[in-house]
């Protein structure tokens, strides 16, 4: 399957997870832990979370803007570049979601521009 991919897609599905893991460890692990299990009573688990397994656009938007639900406070991570965001979300979906699915840089760019336009 890899051989049939374009060069860009290979980068997204092979190089990105390693880069994504580095970003996860830098920016996410402190609260969500290396297991992705979060902190009981404080930080939600990512494992099987509907945010992680669900719509890519919703996940990208959530991480860009931060989450302020009734029990959840998460900072915004809009300082990540589109490429970094794609890499870390690819890692998160692969590790804690339904398996390997690439979140592309283009997709992050589109969601970010939609959010910027709606402000």
């Amino acid at each position, binding site marked *: 399957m890899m051989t049939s991919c374009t060069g860009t897609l290979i980068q997204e599905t092979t190089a990105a997870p390693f880069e994504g893991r580095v970003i996860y*460890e830098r*920016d996410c*692990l402190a609260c969500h832990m290396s*297991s992705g*299990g979060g902190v009981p*009573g404080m930080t939600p*688990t990512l494992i099987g979370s509907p945010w992680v397994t669900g719509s890519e656009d919703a996940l990208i938007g959530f991480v860009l803007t931060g989450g302020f639900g*009734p029990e959840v406070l*998460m*900072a915004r991570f809009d300082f990540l570049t589109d490429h970094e965001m794609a890499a870390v979300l690819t890692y998160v979906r692969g590790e804690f979601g339904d398996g390997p699915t690439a979140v592309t840089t283009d997709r992050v760019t589109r969601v970010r521009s939609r959010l910027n336009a709606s402000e």
Partner: protein
Amino acid sequence: MHRKVPAGLTLIFSGCLFAGGVSAVEVSHSHSVDSSSPIDRDLAIRVPAGFRATVFADIDGYGRHLTVRDDGTVYYALTVRLGRGSNMGIVAMRDTDDDGVADVIERFATDIPGTALQFHDGYLYFGSKTELYRFAFAGDEMVPSGAREVVVGGFPEQRLHEAKTFAIDDDHNIYVNVGAPSNACMEEFRTRGSPGQRPCPQTVVQGGVWRFDADATDQLQGTHGARFATGIRNAMAMRWSDEHQRLYFLTHGRDALLNLYPEYFNAEESAELPSEEMHILTENGDYGWPFTYYDHLQGKRVLAPEYGGDGTEGVEDGMYQEPVATFPGHWAPNDMMFYTGDQLPSRYRDGAFVVFHGSWNRAPLPQGGYKVVFVPFEAELPGSDWEVFADGFKGADVLEDPGAATHRPTSIAQGPAGDLYISSSGSGRVWRVEYIGD
């Protein structure tokens, strides 16, 4: 007179830095738990030689503080945390056949999520998120039949650091911790690059301790209370000592130095800092949050990075209170207690037990805390070191993920016979500990 921090204290804690969070004191102290002794899997905790622990009860709920009535009934507060526990209120437990295990268990006030419990003049005081209640008992009933009264209400609704812990002095004043609803009063919650707010609006009705009349009811924070001290992020552990004639507390220090300021802090510094601080509560004292934090490695209070600090810049002498003891970062002191009984050896008398719930914000380094320590006192101040009184709770030698901890200690209380009770949070377990001699 306010003596400086005993010099040895800071030195000892510095010595344990970057050694996996276990200090030389913990290992070598003759009164500490024997770190080479096995931990009984069923009991799940380890206490020093000469002590015996039993599982007093396993309760379904997210546990908080304990207190014990004069007749030996143990009361255990339950709250609700994200995704954990739907049972709330207060659990009353009695061990009628004196085998170290509760055999009569009742529940009440099950509509209130709460944390702090203490008896005062026969009433049971219970701190919830926005009210402080008290319950009256008739005779020796386990469950209070008297009307539920509000001692103080009107505390702000908040999602973070909402537990209303409290302490009552010997002059019928009640001091209530109103936690600050953020990490460090940034303009945006835990957001890299967001500056700290000055003045910090979270210190107007929060981020401090408010004083009320312990015997009055229907008081409101804004109407009847006076802010007694400020700059306190969240004093989960508070206790008045009759012997020392002072009110002591420990706060939960701020988090995320590395995540928010990677240019100033590495992972080891961010795990170890800031200190968890023990203080004496002083009227009009400012304890430094959010503008500063205490750094036990440098032995000084430093300017917080949200307010222009770089991890080394100190603050003007005399502006803020100095801790009387410091502990490694993020250990999360959830309760403290002065021992006043005779069941334990005399060296424990009027010293402080401190319960460290255990960290989450030391990752990627292993987590720390998850233990009960004993701090011997010399007159009104902590002595030169402390010792581990109970450990093993976390169920692993090295814990990376707080979610994997078997138990997390959260409270300690003394029974009328001078025995001790220790509670866990998420697991709902309560242990009884007594001294049995050699």
